[in-house]
């Protein structure tokens, strides 16, 4: 009798579990990652690390291996950037900015190019004409129609990462478009095929503020505050992570399978106006 009742109770508990509303889990992953980023990495057994790294690399396909190698370069660069100010300067010059713009499988990034009017090279890839950029990527390159902006002052193309290519359009600083603390660029527009992942919002929200806005009726995200990371899924389904380049505010939005990103030290309203004007 007693056994029978206990079985009933267990069944009832199982049934109850199915209809329970458990408390919503806070975004621990983002909070934990933010804390680990600020904290020094723990000492790891070097031999073990190398062994595992190789084993892991060996198990990955060619594309992913490249991506991992690239990430390692980025991490290394990031480590150096954190490490010592003089080295930081050197690395920042060599890699463009903040260790970003290392092109996987491509030629080494050029040193900062001095163009008439200042440094615009952010280590973004190969500097080309707008026409050539349009030929090199698999999507139509959009330009802002905002009055006063005109054609970009510099165009960079990356054909390797992400698949389908990426175009970076840079406008020189001008009245109403303050220069980045790092370069003479005032506005950076990036276009590539890929989708922002739901997770990236959580990740960046830790370091800065994120606002949910709309561009062309599609959801968009406006980031302000601290420089942030940006994670996205490229068209080959690989996770990619980037960081802001201009240390300005950033608007990220989607149009079709295209992701667009705008970085500048301008207000949300101005950013939205530029974004809405993209044709």
């Amino acid at each position: 009798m007693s056994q029978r009742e206990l079985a009933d109770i267990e069944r009832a508990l199982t049934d109850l579990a199915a209809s329970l509303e458990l408390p919503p889990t806070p975004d621990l992953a983002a909070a934990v990652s933010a804390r680990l980023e600020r904290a020094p990495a723990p000492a790891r057994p070097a031999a073990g690390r190398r062994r595992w790294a190789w084993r892991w690399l060996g198990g990955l396909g060619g594309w992913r291996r490249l991506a991992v190698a690239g990430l390692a370069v980025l991490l290394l660069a990031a480590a150096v950037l954190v490490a010592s100010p003089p080295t930081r300067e050197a690395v920042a010059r060599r890699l463009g900015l903040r260790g970003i713009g290392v092109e996987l499988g491509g030629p080494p990034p050029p040193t900062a190019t001095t163009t008439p009017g200042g440094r615009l090279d952010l280590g973004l890839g190969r500097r080309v004409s707008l026409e050539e950029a349009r030929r090199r990527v698999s999507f139509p390159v959009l330009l802002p129609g905002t009055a006063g902006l005109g054609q970009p002052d510099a165009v960079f193309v990356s054909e390797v990462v992400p698949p389908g290519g990426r175009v970076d359009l840079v406008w020189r600083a001008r009245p109403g478009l303050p220069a980045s603390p790092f370069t003479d660029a005032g506005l950076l527009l990036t276009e590539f095929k890929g989708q922002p992942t739901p997770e990236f919002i959580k990740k960046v929200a830790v370091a800065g503020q994120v606002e949910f806005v709309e561009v062309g009726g599609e959801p968009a995200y406006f980031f302000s505050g601290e420089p942030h990371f940006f994670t996205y899924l490229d068209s080959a389904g690989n996770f990619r992570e980037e960081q802001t380049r201009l240390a300005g505010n950033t608007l990220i939005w989607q149009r079709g399978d295209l992701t667009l990103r705008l970085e500048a030290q301008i207000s949300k309203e101005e950013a939205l106006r530029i974004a809405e004007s993209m044709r």
Partner: protein
Amino acid sequence: MEGRPLDEQELVEQARGGDARAYEVLVRRYQDLAFRTAWVIAGGADAEDAAQEGFVKAWYALPRFRAGSPFRPWLLAIVANEARNRRRSGRRQDDLALRVAEDRPSGDAAPSPEAAALDSEQRRLLLAAVGRLGDSDRQVITCRYFLELSEAEMAAALGCRRGTVKSRLSRALERLRAALAEQDAAAAAATKLPGGER
């Protein structure tokens, strides 16, 4: 989890090698589990803090993690320890107030005692009875039935030896049974009153 043990092992190994991104994937995967476990032990106010601290401590403890052993119990032991440290002594966990989702309107036919499905009133009563149990009983029942932890995970979360989990659970179920019997008796008495449907 059962379908992807290799995946988890790979992630853990990468994290052990210092890959914070691999670790983030693990955190994302187990944050529900960790948070709920912390919440069962420490209560709503301290659960987030305990789970977050647990994940950070686990990261630093990873070099000591025995390769190939199951990750979840190991993680839960750390999180639960944080939760216990935060638990304010003597506090009744009133904030364990779980809610029963309102669904399945009870039909006209009264369900038999054997029926698996309870109506929402029965669920509420059962939940209330669980909530009135002592901490130890309530935790073991919650871990087993609501969080669906394995025996090893329960042992880790409750800080006891694996061998004692079963006996602890059956003792808790006995006490729940007694509590329900009392409740039933009270309810039966109530329905005998005129207008017993409240």
